[in-house]
């Protein structure tokens, strides 16, 4: 168990969060806490507000009402630049469609996250290569995203998310665009990460992914948390 998990401190704290897009309400008074070292999965039907929740926690979007506090930062009080710095230091994001930069090879895609913080290129590339090695794709370090398989792309995406040693790893349907074998590999990877203490929040439709990777299931419907419970699997 990691030091963070031992301490059991609250890493993510949402209090009465509401998000409106014009007339539509995406989040309706969500109150939720995630502790350091925890692996939680948010489940629910399409359009229920799962991705909006993830965006709020990542500081990619702002709530209409309520507060979002992550790693002690009240995100509603931060400006655009401060939010960018917050994401660099505390958040790693894994996307369903990988969102790699087409024009950069795998190694530079991963190193980029560190280089934006001012880490020298040599140091950033060395760490990126280590991560790619740990995730089993070091051999494709010079390949462009378009020439990688889906599983390989997602591993590169995970490596990029881990590059700055984030306190919180957010995964939006991480296996949604993968075949079953690649999906399995990514699930194992996430479990491994959580086992070494990485706090994890997964948004998914996939019950198997949720139960295998997460210790807690959060059920979402119509922008509200409608149920929570221990998942237990994978722990």
């Amino acid at each position: 168990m990691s030091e963070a998990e031992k301490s059991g401190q609250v890493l993510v704290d949402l209090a009465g969060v509401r998000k409106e897009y014009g007339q539509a309400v995406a989040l309706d008074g969500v109150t939720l806490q995630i502790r350091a070292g925890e692996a939680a999965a948010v489940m629910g039907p399409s359009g229920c507000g799962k991705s909006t929740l993830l965006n709020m926690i990542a500081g990619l979007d702002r709530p209409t009402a309520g507060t979002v506090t992550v790693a002690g930062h009240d995100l509603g009080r931060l400006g655009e630049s401060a939010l960018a710095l917050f994401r660099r230091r505390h958040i790693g994001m894994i996307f369903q469609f990988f969102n790699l930069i087409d024009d950069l090879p795998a190694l530079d895609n991963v190193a980029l996250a560190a280089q934006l913080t001012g880490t020298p290129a040599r140091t950033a590339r060395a760490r990126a290569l280590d991560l790619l090695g740990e995730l089993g794709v070091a051999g494709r370090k010079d390949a462009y995203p378009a020439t990688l398989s889906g599983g390989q792309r997602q591993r590169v995406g995970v490596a990029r998310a881990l590059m700055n040693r984030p306190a919180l790893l957010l995964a939006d349907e991480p296996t949604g665009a993968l075949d079953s074998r690649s999906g399995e590999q990514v699930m194992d990877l996430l479990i491994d990460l959580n086992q070494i203490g990485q706090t994890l929040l997964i948004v998914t439709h996939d019950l198997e992914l949720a139960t295998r990777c997460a210790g807690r299931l959060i059920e979402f419907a119509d922008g509200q948390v409608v149920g929570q419970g221990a998942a237990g699997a994978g722990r």
Partner: protein
Amino acid sequence: MSAVWRTARAAVARRRVQTLLIGLVVLCCTATAVLALGLLDAATTPFDRAFEHQRGAHVVASFDAAKANPAALARTAARPGVQAAAGPFGQVVADFPRTTDIPEAEGPLTIAGRAGPGGPVDRVSVLYGRWARAPGEIVLNLPAADGPRRPQALGARLTAPGLPPLTVVGLASSMSRSADAWVTPAQMAALRPRAVQMLYRFEEAATGPELRAAMAALSDGLPAGALASAATHLALRQAFADLAAAYLPLLTVFGVLALLVAVLIVAGVVSGAVVSGLRHIGVLKALGFTPGQVVAVYLTMVSVPAAIGAALGAAAGAALAGPVLRAAFQGVDAGVAEIGFGGWVPGVCLAGMPLLVAAAALVPALRARRLSAAAAISAGSAPRPGRGLRVQRALGGARLPRPVSLGLGLPFARPGRTAMTMAAIVVGLTSVTLTTGLGVTMAAFAAADRPPAGQVGVRVGEAAFGENAPRLDDRRIEALLRSLPGVRQVTAKVFRQVRLAGQARRGDINFQRGDTSPLAAQVVQGRWFDGPGQIVAPPAFLSQRGLAVGDRITLLLNGRRAEARIVGRLMSGDARFAWASWDTLTALDPRASADTYEVRLAAGVDPRRYADAVRAADPGLHPSFSLETGTTAATVVGVAGVFTALLIAVAALGVFNTVLLTTRERRRELGVLKSIGMTPRQVTVMTVTSVAAQGAAGALIAIPAGMLAHRLIVDNVGIVEFPDAMKDVFQPSHLVALALAGVVIAVLGALAPACSAARLTVAAVLHAE
């Protein structure tokens, strides 16, 4: 068609920025085209219109009254080839000293005796007052009818030696410039004219040879030597367009350049719009739009803003052309010609520019027509293989802030888009380099025609004009002028009409002594004279006499002869005049003395004060100076500046468009970069760096290209051979400024899209993708 129209209208409304851009580019281009074509048209059309309205004389002929009797002259009207004739009118030349504030009533005036302003040829327009009805009345010719209104000149009494007092009863304008003033035939008879004037219109009068042939045929039956002089309408037309003509070839280059830039930029903008809309095209096809309807949607989408832009541009161009034309024709003896251009100019531009835009849109639209729906959709949204691997790797490892290295790598990742941006920058900057160079050359040329600031001309008074003669002799006058405070240089001059052995035409030689005239800087071949027997002449003087630099000629004056060699050719000048040293004159006329002194004052010296000092020292000296600082130069620079500003605007809009499209294409990528911690400032830095790099690279191509184009044009276009000093206009500081201009154009174009990219909401972008 309703589905096509609705879809196109929706696309126009959805792509507001792009629609606005197309409209703005077309607006600027149309305004430029109207201005360019307007200047070309205005250079000749107004004269032709007014000349034809007055049934102007193709030839104003002056006959020796002693050799040709009026009846014989009247019969010339019936000669073959003569369309119409007027006359004979008695003609005298009288010197009028300055007694009034009417500039047209000063100096030697050609006066004709005419019963009225009408007739078959040269229907003079009476602008103020009336035609002369009785002896003692005179009507003056106003060379520029649109000048200040001067009805107060009516009633003024003019006096000249040997003439009775004449009262001004009318101010008129003759496009044929048949006379400087008119009196009644009875008054003319009392003046005992020794010349008779005939005004002719010929069937064939378009060229010099045609007119010479017509005049030769006409004077066949007249006694030898009866024809004293003949002034053609071609010379008048040339004089009208002279100011513009000197610059017209260069202005034409501006106009053609503007049109070229317009085509390139519009094609780029429209192509970009179509290429960026590929996904949209795919969706339309999937919905059941036929290929023809897809083409129609895209043509409509770009034609709507193009039509609006062209309409506004034509109006803006016409509005801008007014003051530009007024300035360009300032000082031209326009007579009653109204300076302006024909309605066809904005009409052609109004119709032509939207057609041009539609043609530019047609090529990419036809490409979209051929694409299958699936291919179009995937072309607009599928991930692309990476490009520029080596460059990207090198930049990824470079010791540069990552946003900067990412920005530098961007052009290599999108070669097609980079080519488009670079084309916009190169075309724009080449135009800027060329136009600024041409502007400087033309301004220098215009400035050379005017006395420089701080120059005072001192004329010796002549008793024949009722003026005091100077107390001092020639050498003492020069010494006096040099001794007064503030003098830098003095050149003593006199014009003498000399014969050139073996030549039919005489020449007016300006003999000079003292300090070298500033004219020496205008020598384009050979050198300025530096001793006796050396002559410098303009190209027209040499070509009309079959002479060239290095030729030897013999000057004849007062029964004396002097050998001389042509040592230099000037940039331009009148065919009558040439320049030589005083020593050459001494050989022809040992007692010659200067009648004019050109005094150049030190910087900061007030010419008024110097002129007062000259008058006080010797009332027989008449100093004059101009406080104007070259309106022609200012006009030329102004016109060049307008074109340059429009071209810069078009180029910046072209760059803006490509950057906007690139930014749109990269929305997802920018969202990803922001999601992993790129700050808004870093996004701006990255975007601006990518374009600034292209701006700098574009400058490396465009500046030499612009300089080369400038040199080619000033060497080969136009009627003037420019001296090197007017051609070597690109100084190092100028080049640095131009290179910076390339970067600035690019950065200005990129700034707004970069800032908009920095403000992208990551969640919205990634969600949309």
